[in-house]
């Protein structure tokens, strides 16, 4: 009995220490961001950030790129992973290895490759937004692939598709009525992770010369003191807001209260 209590005590202690490890720097950044006006705590740095037209411009640009990346990424990767699960399980190790490449190859190498490949020749896309989106899709590939793969593993994909086929359904109906509704959490997770990556991405946007949010944050961080701290807190809140949204959606779906569960 006392052993169990001691173990619980240790667990709480480590949890508390972990909390402090993450929370103290965040608190420090937040308090620092409130010192925008000398002698008083204020949200002046946040006001300045919101008042800067570049903030909204760069943020909305990155937002558009994030949405495009999510759409292109999901359209490419979902059918591929389903095909691998159903028809080509032998290809799984190959695709898994490919999905790890963005972790191994630095973005700077990727972007130089893209510039070299697409600055001339039959596809001069270097000044096209599509090249930026394509680069972002590569960066987001590991996250989208793993989310989709986990979503498909969580269901009996073969059984469900065969059951739907035996009921007369075409592949379009199977995808939109059976497969995708049962992997909503995985799709949300893939979408939000992609969003987080694209919103703060720096290298591709700088090297391809696009006015994105990542370069803007870097610029603000170089020239100003309190505003970068405010931006960091805003980014943090945005990310945690998205994670909270995933949790909320997962719980709703798991309980089957609105759109059914992924059981």
């Amino acid at each position: 009995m006392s052993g169990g209590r001691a173990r619980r005590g240790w667990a709480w202690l480590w949890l508390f220490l972990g909390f402090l490890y993450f929370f103290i720097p965040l608190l420090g950044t937040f308090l620092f961001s409130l010192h925008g006006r000398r002698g008083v705590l204020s949200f002046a740095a946040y006001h300045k950030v919101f008042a800067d037209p570049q903030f909204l411009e760069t943020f909305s640009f990155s937002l558009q790129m994030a949405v495009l990346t999510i759409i292109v990424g999901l359209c490419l990767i979902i059918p591929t992973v389903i095909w691998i699960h159903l028809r080509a399980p032998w290809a799984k190790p190959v695709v898994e290895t490919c999905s790890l490449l963005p972790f191994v190859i630095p973005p700077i190498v990727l972007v130089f490759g893209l510039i070299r490949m697409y600055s001339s020749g039959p596809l001069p896309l270097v000044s096209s937004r599509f090249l930026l989106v394509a680069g972002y899709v590569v960066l987001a590939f590991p996250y989208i692939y793993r989310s989709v793969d986990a979503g498909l593993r969580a269901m009996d994909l073969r059984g469900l598709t065969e059951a739907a086929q035996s009921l007369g359904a075409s592949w379009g109906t199977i995808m939109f009525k059976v497969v995708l509704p049962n992997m909503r959490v995985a799709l949300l997770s893939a979408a939000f992770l992609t969003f987080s990556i694209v919103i703060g991405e720096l290298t591709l946007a700088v090297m391809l010369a696009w006015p994105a949010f990542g370069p803007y944050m870097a610029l603000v961080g170089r020239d100003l003191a309190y505003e970068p701290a405010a931006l960091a807190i805003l980014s943090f809140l945005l990310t945690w807001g998205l994670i909270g949204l995933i949790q909320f959606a997962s719980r709703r779906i798991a309980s089957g209260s609105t759109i059914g569960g992924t059981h």
Partner: protein
Amino acid sequence: MAFLELDGVVKRFGRNVVVDGFTLAVQEGEFVSFLGGSGCGKTTTLRMIAGFETPTGGSIRIHGSDVVALAPNKRGVGMVFQNYALFPNMTVRRNIEFGLKVARWRPAEIAQRVEEMLSLIHMEELGERYPHQMSGGQQQRASLARALAVKPKVLLLDEPLSALDAKIRASLRTEIRAIQQKTGITTIYVTHDQEEALSLSDRIVVMQAGKIEQVGTPFEIYNHPATAFVASFIGNLNILEAAVLDPALGLLAVAGQQVQAAGPVTGSRVKLALRPEMLSLNEGVPGANSLAGRLTTVVFLGSIVRLGIRIGDHDLALDRFNTPHLALPAVGSDVSISFPREACLVSPL
């Protein structure tokens, strides 16, 4: 003309022949079971009928039309899976509606058909439940209703009861047979459970290593097995080696004692198979065979008691009904067993 015909169907995966020259004609409304051990090709054959596997050779005809080139969703074949395969994001009602909506039935007809199906499986109150809110037995009944709703030409069931516990399995088995008889649908049922196949089927197809060993009614399969495999696979068997004394009279010698089969036999040595329930203990029946031995074990199996009897080098099992007044000799005592000539299943060694 048969309703479902498989003619010389072959399936190879690489060099591995999984189904080898499978030929079968199933009449309309018939309930046929494919029975065999793991890897005998029964599920692959079923999946070829459904269209989920393409035969390497042969033809499959449903109602006279060759369906080999047709996609699964064009064959008009309903399927029930071992793990239910209900759509998790839909209630039972929406699961049943699915195929009807795909077939573009009118809303009023869909509603009526769903009610009919829910009533058929006695789940009128559970229509709004999601699969995860139901037991395995309820899920399988819902799966059956979903498959039947679209009025398929043939119903295929792939080991539908194997994921359920024994009690539910027994009750659902009865229910499946009742529903099949009520709807009159031509049904193919895959199982490795001989009790299921014997109790449900009009005919049983016993398979081994991709080939058909025997096709027959449960009575024929059990009482007149065509091959040694069928004899050993269906029910329990005592197998004894015997020397042939007189082939024309079917006279054999087992452990130095004479036994006579019902008909002539061939060869000099044969396998003599006897079912445990065909043997009697210490009952001298005139005209019947009799062997002397020693009682070695008594095992209680609920409704029956299985006695182990040693005859020469052979150990035999003999089943007796377990009644309150059952009197058994002591273990180690000398006993005699008797059995009619017709109980002798003789096959080449």
